[in-house]
């Protein structure tokens, strides 16, 4: 096991350090929800993510849009949630992929721009059990039926 937190860089975008954590049995999801705007993280409902590939693909897209086009949302973290979604509406993406009232399994993304931010200390304000980031862990919390609905464009819903 490579350590419980996944920390990596994208070959093309060395100036960003990406951290991914997964928590099970989270007890403070409503508190997190009420403070989403202030917390510099992406909190994702684990039910909607099946693999590291799905997640890292969204992170790549978020950074790509930020670097080469423009941010469509306020922060790189909300950009990640938007990039998970087939829809281009941030509210809709948050409803689909963000944490809900009572979400117990949460994936956290923290992206640091090395040149103007402090390294990440690992504290994402989540009360829960930290578990390893892996395809196995992701697929145990994933809900395929939910994924089928959140991953299709809204005009087809």
């Amino acid at each position, binding site marked *: 096991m*490579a350590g419980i937190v*996944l920390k*990596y860089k*994208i*070959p*093309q975008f*060395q100036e960003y350090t990406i951290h991914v954590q997964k928590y099970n049995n989270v007890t403070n999801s409503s508190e997190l929800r009420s403070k989403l705007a202030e917390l510099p993280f992406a909190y994702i409902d684990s039910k909607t993510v099946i693999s*590291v*590939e799905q997640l*890292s*693909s969204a*992170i*790549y*897209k978020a950074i*790509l849009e930020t670097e*080469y*086009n423009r941010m469509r949302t306020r922060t790189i973290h909300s950009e990640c949630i938007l990039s998970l979604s087939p829809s281009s509406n941030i509210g809709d993406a948050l409803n689909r992929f963000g944490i809900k009232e009572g979400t117990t399994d949460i994936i956290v993304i923290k992206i640091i721009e090395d040149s103007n931010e402090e390294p990440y200390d690992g504290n994402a304000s989540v009360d829960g059990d930290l578990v390893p980031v892996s*395809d196995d862990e992701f697929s145990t919390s994933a809900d395929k039926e939910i994924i089928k609905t959140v991953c299709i464009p809204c005009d087809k819903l």
Partner: protein
Amino acid sequence: MSAEIIASIADVLTDNIPLTPISQGAEAVVFTSPVHPYLPKNRTDGDDKLYILKYRPEKKYRHPVIDKTLTKHRTLGESRLLAKLRLIDGLNVPKLIGCDPYHGCIWLEFLGEDLPNGHGFSNLKNFLWMNASDPYSDLVRDTMINVGKQIGLMHWNDYCHGDLTTSNIVLVRAGEDWQPYLIDFGLGSISTLVEDKGVDLYVLERAIISTHSSFANRYNLWVLEGFKSVFESHGKAGLGKYKDLIRRFEEVRLRGRKRSMIG
């Protein structure tokens, strides 16, 4: 291959992504890379895996703004088409890994392999050459029927390829057999028109005739056999569509002949 083109994309992707050019077409340069564009390390699906980068370089003769818009449009178009095709049950197309429309980049899974005894990359063209000494073997027949099935499946779902040559069909080894995959949807489209589908069939027929003329008749019959089987599996509606399509295919063929007689 132009060093300038390679430098222009190497500059974007940085030294962290080594690129080996493998093909230069009219519109795109294709590279392989041992580096996945974004998967965290140690999570790649194997050490000797390769990834495909299809890069549409800047065209200096176009106005830069128009060029950027066009490149973005085509890159996104091809990516979206591939993503949709990939959802069709039984249809074989490369998996879309990533897309950077601002630099004309599409990342794909690498398909195929080098054929034995220096017969080159495992596309349909080289495969038929390799088997020319036993052209009507079961292996060749099954492969051609499967090629026809892939095209039938694509057309049944109202997608057209637009450039269906024997190099744009890649064979992937599956035990003793070879599974055909359709690649290069740069000219692909969603279309209900029999004309577009008839042209697809005609282009492939011509490609087979021009490179494998002595065996082409049989090859083309096998392709049509597989093609028809997909439509047949959809009952009356399927057969109706099949007939309309073949009628148009024959018209397209006739037009082609006339054109070549005139010169």
